[in-house]
C-alpha cells in the first residue's frame, strides 16, 4: 500500500499529513506510532532503530502518544480514562490526580471528570482522548484527524492546546487532517500522501502553491475549492 | 457497575472460604490433605447395601481412630482398585476369583469373616413354578420357559456365583446370555438389581442379606433357598504391599483383627435381627465355612 516513503520529521516540528481518503495516511501514522510494522525499511524514532531493537519498542512507545481517528473511551469515568496511561507508567497516585484534572481543564472538560466516559458524545470523547494522550507529556504526539468530529469552537480550543503544547514543550506533532486551512495554520512541514506515495513534502508555503503541472496541484486546487464552497454554504 | 462486580466477587470468595473450611474436610473433621491417615477399602455392593459397613465404619473409626473410606464397587472393579493400589484392602465374595487374586500376588491372605446364602428370589406368584427345586434345576426351568431373569452382569461375586450355577446345570454361559430377551444383564449393584426384578416381575439371584434389607420395598419372596452351591462367603483381603506400591497393609491388618474379634463377630451376628427377625450374616472368624 505505502510505497517508497522516505520521511524525516525534525524534533519539535509540527508535521501535518494531508491527502485524499484511502491514500494511506492512517497506515503511515500507525507505523510511526509503532502500532503496525512496515513490510520493509528502517524506522528510527528518538534516535533508536526500533525495527532492529524490538525490545526497546515499549520504552519508545511510552515517550509517544496516539489519538485514534474514532477514539474509544474505556468503560470507566473520564478521570480514570485519563489516569490509565499514567498508571501504566507507574506515576504516583497523587500526581496522577493532579495532572489528570489539570489536563481536563486545558481541553475544557473539567466538569466531566466523574462522568462515565461511555456516555459522552463524539466530540466530548475526542477531547477526552486528546487529554488522555497529552497527560503523559509525550515527546511525540500522533493524531489522526483530531478535530474531525468537533464543532468549530471546540476544534479551535484543541488547536490552541496543540499549538501551545508544541511551543512550550517542544512536542513533535505528527497529525493527519482533511482541513487544509488547519494544515496551513498549524504546520511547520506539510506532507502530501497520494496513493501510498509521499508526493510532496515541505513548508506550507511551498506545498500550498504547487506548480501547475505537479501531481498535487489538482488535489490542492480541488480541496481548496471544496473548502471555500463549504464555507460559503 | 462496580457494585455488581464487587458484590459478585465477594459472594464468590466468601462462599469458597466458608465451603472450604466447612466442607472440604470430611464430616468427621479431618483435613483433605491427610489421605495417608485413611484406610481405603473397596467392598462389594451386596455387603454395602445391607448397611452393615455403615454400622461397622462408625464403630471402627471411633475405636481405632483410623478414618475408613469405603468404596461401593462390584467385586470386579474392587479387585481392580486393589491391583492398582488405589485401595488398601477389599471385602468381596467370589472365592475362585479371590484365590486367583492371591495366587497372582496381589493379596496377602484371604480371611473369611462372615457368610450367608444366596437365594433365588422372584414374584410371589412364581410364574415359572420353580419353588422347591434345586438351584441347578430351577435355572434349567427358567431357561426352558424363558421366564424373565435379571442377572447382575457385572463380574461381581453374585454374578460369579450365578455363572457357577449355570455351569453346574450344564449350560454354556455364552449360550445363556445370547438366548433371548428374557435374560437381562443389569450391570448394577445388588440393591438396584432387586428393585429392577421387582419392577419387571422377574427372578434374580441375590445374597440373603441384601434381599432381606430390600424385601419390604420390593415385595419379592424367596423361591429357592437350599442347595450347597448357594453358600456365600465374604472375605477380607489386604493388598500386598510387596507387589502393589503404596498399599497400607498395617492399617488393613488392624481392620482384619477388628472384623474377626469376638465382639465384632457377635455384632455381625446380631446385625439385622431387630429389623428383619433373622440374622443377615453368620460370622465365621477367619475360618472357611462348610456348607
Amino acid at each position, binding site marked *: 500500500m505505502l510505497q517508497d516513503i522516505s520521511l524525516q520529521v525534525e524534533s519539535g516540528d509540527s508535521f501535518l499529513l494531508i491527502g485524499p481518503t484511502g491514500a494511506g495516511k492512517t497506515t503511515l501514522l500507525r507505523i510511526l506510532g509503532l502500532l503496525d510494522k512496515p513490510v520493509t525499511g528502517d524506522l528510527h524514532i528518538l534516535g533508536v532503530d526500533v525495527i532492529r531493537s524490538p525490545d526497546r519498542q515499549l520504552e519508545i512507545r511510552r515517550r509517544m502518544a496516539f489519538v485514534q481517528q474514532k477514539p474509544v473511551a474505556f468503560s470507566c469515568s473520564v478521570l480514570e480514562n485519563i489516569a490509565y496511561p499514567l498508571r501504566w507508567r507507574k506515576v504516583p497516585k497523587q500526581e496522577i490526580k493532579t495532572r489528570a484534572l489539570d489536563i481536563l481543564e486545558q481541553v475544557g472538560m473539567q466538569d466531566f471528570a466523574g462522568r462515565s466516559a461511555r456516555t459522552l458524545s463524539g466530540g466530548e470523547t475526542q477531547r477526552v482522548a486528546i487529554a488522555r494522550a497529552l497527560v503523559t507529556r509525550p515527546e511525540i504526539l500522533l493524531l489522526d484527524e483530531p478535530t474531525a468530529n468537533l464543532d468549530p469552537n471546540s476544534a479551535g480550543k484543541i488547536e490552541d492546546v496543540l499549538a501551545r503544547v508544541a511551543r512550550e514543550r517542544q512536542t513533535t506533532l505528527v497529525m493527519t487532517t482533511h482541513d487544509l486551512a488547519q494544515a496551513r495554520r498549524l504546520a511547520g512541514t506539510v506532507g502530501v500522501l497520494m496513493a501510498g506515495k509521499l508526493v510532496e513534502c515541505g513548508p506550507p508555503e511551498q506545498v500550498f502553491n504547487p506548480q501547475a503541472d505537479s501531481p498535487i496541484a489538482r488535489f490542492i486546487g480541488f480541496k481548496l475549492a471544496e473548502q471555500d464552497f463549504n464555507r460559503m454554504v | 457497575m462496580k457494585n455488581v462486580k464487587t458484590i459478585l466477587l465477594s459472594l464468590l470468595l466468601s462462599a*469458597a472460604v466458608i465451603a472450604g473450611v466447612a466442607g472440604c474436610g470430611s464430616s468427621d473433621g479431618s483435613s483433605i490433605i491427610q489421605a495417608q491417615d485413611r484406610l481405603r477399602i473397596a467392598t462389594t455392593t451386596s455387603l454395602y447395601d445391607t448397611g452393615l459397613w455403615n454400622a461397622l465404619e462408625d464403630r471402627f473409626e471411633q475405636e481405632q481412630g483410623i478414618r475408613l473410606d469405603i468404596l461401593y464397587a462390584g467385586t470386579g472393579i474392587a479387585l481392580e482398585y486393589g491391583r492398582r493400589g488405589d485401595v488398601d484392602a477389599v471385602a468381596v465374595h467370589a472365592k475362585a476369583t479371590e484365590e486367583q487374586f492371591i495366587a497372582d500376588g496381589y493379596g496377602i491372605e484371604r480371611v473369611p469373616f462372615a457368610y450367608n446364602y444366596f437365594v433365588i428370589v422372584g414374584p410371589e406368584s412364581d410364574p415359572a413354578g420353580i419353588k422347591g427345586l434345586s438351584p441347578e434345576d430351577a435355572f434349567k426351568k427358567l431357561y426352558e420357559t424363558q421366564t424373565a431373569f435379571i442377572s447382575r452382569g457385572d463380574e461381581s461375586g453374585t454374578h460369579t456365583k450365578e455363572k457357577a450355577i449355570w455351569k453346574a446345570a450344564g449350560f454354556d454361559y455364552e449360550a445363556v446370555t445370547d438366548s433371548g430377551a428374557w435374560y437381562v444383564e443389569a450391570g448394577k449393584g445388588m440393591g438396584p438389581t432387586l428393585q429392577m426384578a421387582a419392577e419387571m416381575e422377574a427372578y434374580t439371584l441375590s445374597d440373603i442379606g441384601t434381599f432381606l434389607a430390600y424385601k419390604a420395598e420390593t415385595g419379592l419372596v424367596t423361591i429357592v433357598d437350599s442347595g450347597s452351591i448357594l453358600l456365600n462367603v465374604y472375605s477380607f483381603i489386604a493388598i500386598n504391599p510387596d507387589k502393589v506400591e503404596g498399599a497400607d497393609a498395617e492399617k488393613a491388618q488392624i481392620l482384619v483383627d477388628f472384623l474377626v474379634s469376638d465382639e465384632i463377630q457377635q455384632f455381625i451376628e446380631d446385625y439385622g435381627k431387630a429389623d428383619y427377625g433373622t440374622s443377615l450374616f453368620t460370622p465365621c472368624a477367619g475360618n472357611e465355612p462348610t456348607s
Partner: protein
Amino acid sequence: MSELWQGILRALELLVTFDPEVMAVTFRSLGISVTACIISALVCLPLGSLIHFTSFRGKHLLVSIIQTFYSLPTVLVGLLVFILFSRAGPFGDLGLMFTPTLMVIGQALLVIPLMLGLIISALASLDKTVADTAFSLGASRFQAGILALKEARYAVVTAVIMGFGRAISEVGLAMMVGGNIRGFTRILTTAISLETSKGDIELSLALGFILLIISLVINVVLGRLQQVRSSAAH
C-alpha cells in the same frame, strides 16, 4: 404420584431442619466446585488474554480445539484423571485417588476448556480499537491484557460462572475419581446417583432440590449480568 409427594415432603423436612448429612454434602459440593472454578479462572484469565493477543500460526485451530472440548463427556475426563492419578499411574505417588483434592483437579481440567474458550470469545468481542488505544498510550502487553479483561468484564464473569455451572452439575468425574465415599468425597450429584440407585427417593429429591436451587441462583445471576452488560454498552 403419592411417592413423589411423600418424597417432596420429606425433602422439605430434611432441608428445613438442616439435616447434617445433607448440609455436609452440599457444602462439600460447593467447596469443591468453587475451588475448581477459582483455579480455572486463575489459569484461564492470563492464558485467554495471551492467546487472544498473540497472533501465531494455528491460532484458529487451537481455538477450535478448545471449543470442541467444551462438552467433553465428564466420564471421559474422569477416566483420564483416574488413569493418571491411580496408584498404578504416573502420578500415583501423590496418593490423591478418592480425595476431594483430586476432584478439584479433575473438575478444573473439565472446566478450563470451557472457561478459556468463553474468555477468548469475550475478548474477541471487544472493539479492536481498545487494545490499539492501550498500546498507543504506552501499555505493555500485560497491562493491555488486564485492561481488555476489565473492559470485557461482564462477559468474563459470565464465562467464570458458566464454568462453575458445569463443575457443580457434573457427576461422571466426581464418581470415578472421588469414589463417592460417605463423609469424605460424597457430593450432591454423586449422592443423588447413589441414593436413587439404592431407592432412597426422598433423600435424592432433597439433594436434587438443593442442586436445583443452586442452578437457579446461577441462572439468575447470569441473567442480571447480561442485563447490566447490555445496558452498559449503550
